[in-house]
C-alpha cells in the first residue's frame, strides 16, 4: 500500500550557498535568496545549507526549476538532489551525540 513512498522515489533537494555580504545590495540579495528558499518549503539544515523533502521525482523537478530561477547575481550556489534512501544514510551529530533526522510523512497526526 505504501510502496509508492519507497525510499528510492522520495527525493531531497539540497542547496548549498556562499553569497557575498560586503555591500548593502549584496546583503539584501543574500537575504532575499534565503527568504525565497524558505518560501518554497526549504528548511535550514545548517547556515548556508537548505533542504527540501519532495514526495516524487516530478515534484523534485518542480523545486529544482524554482531554485534555478532564484539564483542571485553574485555568489556560489550548489544544488544536489538525492534519494531518500541516500539521505537516510546520512549521520548527524549534535554536541557529539548522534541525532535522528525528522522526515516528513504523508500523513501526520498532531
Amino acid at each position, binding site marked *: 500500500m*505504501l510502496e509508492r513512498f519507497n525510499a528510492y522515489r522520495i527525493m531531497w533537494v539540497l542547496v548549498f550557498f556562499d553569497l557575498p555580504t560586503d555591500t548593502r545590495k549584496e546583503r539584501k540579495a543574500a537575504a532575499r535568496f534565503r527568504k525565497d528558499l*524558505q*518560501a518554497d518549503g526549504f528548511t535550514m539544515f545548517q547556515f548556508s545549507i537548505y533542504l527540501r523533502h519532495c514526495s516524487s521525482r516530478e515534484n523534485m523537478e518542480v523545486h529544482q526549476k524554482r531554485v534555478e530561477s532564484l539564483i542571485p547575481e553574485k555568489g556560489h550556489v550548489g544544488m544536489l538532489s538525492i534519494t531518500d534512501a541516500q539521505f537516510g544514510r546520512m549521520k548527524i551529530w549534535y554536541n557529539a551525540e548522534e541525532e535522528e533526522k525528522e522526515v516528513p510523512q504523508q500523513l501526520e497526526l498532531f
Partner: protein
Amino acid sequence: MIKRTLYFGNPAWLSVSNGQLVIKDPLLKDYKDLAEKARIPMEDIGLVVLDHQQITVTQTVLNMLLANNAAVVVCDDRRHPTGMLLNLNGNVVQAELFRHQIEASEPLRKQLWKQTVECKIRNQAAVLANEQLDDAYLLELAGKVQSGDTGNREAQAAAWYWPRLIKELPDFRRFREGPPPNNLFNYGYAILRAVVARSLVGSGLLPTLGIFHRNRYNAYALADDIMEPYRPVVDGMVLKLLRRSGVPEELTTEHKGFLLNLPVTDVILDGKASPLMAAVQRTTASLAQCYKGDQRKVLYPSLP
C-alpha cells in the same frame, strides 16, 4: 504528486509564515522557539482535518489552503466530521464547465449514472472476493445495470452485500445512525467525500449538481455520486481495522490514523496502480471531459 494529509487531534495554533503552515502549541504560543511543533509548505498539503475544540486558525491559513486546493474538514465537539471548506475558484475554465454541467442532457446523465452504479457493484464484488466470499451474484447484477439504473440494481446489490460483508457480524445493518461499526464506515466515507469534493472543484466542477439525484438538499450531491465506486475501498479498510482492533464504541486516534491513509491507498485505474487521491483527480478530470462532450466514459477505479 501526492499531497500531504494533516490531522489535528490536539490543541493547536495554526498560522502562516512565508508560505509555510506554522503549527504551534497554544499553551506556549508566545514562546517562539519552544512553541513551534512543525512548519509545513502550504503547497504540499492536500487535506487538513481539524478535530479538536481548541484549535485556532488564522484567516491566512484558510486562504492559502484554499488557494492550494486543499480541503479542510471540520469536526464537532463529539469529534465527528461535520463540514468541509473548499475553494470556489478551483479551475480557470470552471465557468464554462459549470455551464456544461447545468446543461448536461438527460441521456448523458443516465449513462454516467449507469457507469457509476455498475462500477460500484463490481467493486463491492471485489471486496467480497477478497474476503473469500461468493461474488457471482454481484457480478451478475453489475452486468444488468441499466441506463439511469432504472432497475435499481444499486439497492439490490446493497441488500446482498451488507449482511454478508462482515463474517463476524451477520446481523450488521449499514446506516449512518447505526451502532458501531457504522461509526468506522461514517468516518471513512467522510474522508472520501472530502477527497472527492476537493478533486471536483480542482477539475472545475460544481460539487452541488449531482449526476442523477439533483433534487437533494445537499451541497455535495455530485461528490456523493462520484464517490460511490470508491466506497468499497473504505469498506476494505474498515474490515482490516475490525480484524485488527474489534468493534470500537468510540473512534480513537489509532482508528482515525488508519482511515486517514485512505488518500494513499492503492486502486487500479486504467490498468495501473494509483494512490486513491490521484485516481480521484483523474476520475473528476474525465467527468469534466464527459460534460464537455469530449468523451462518454468516466474513468473509474477497480480494486486490487
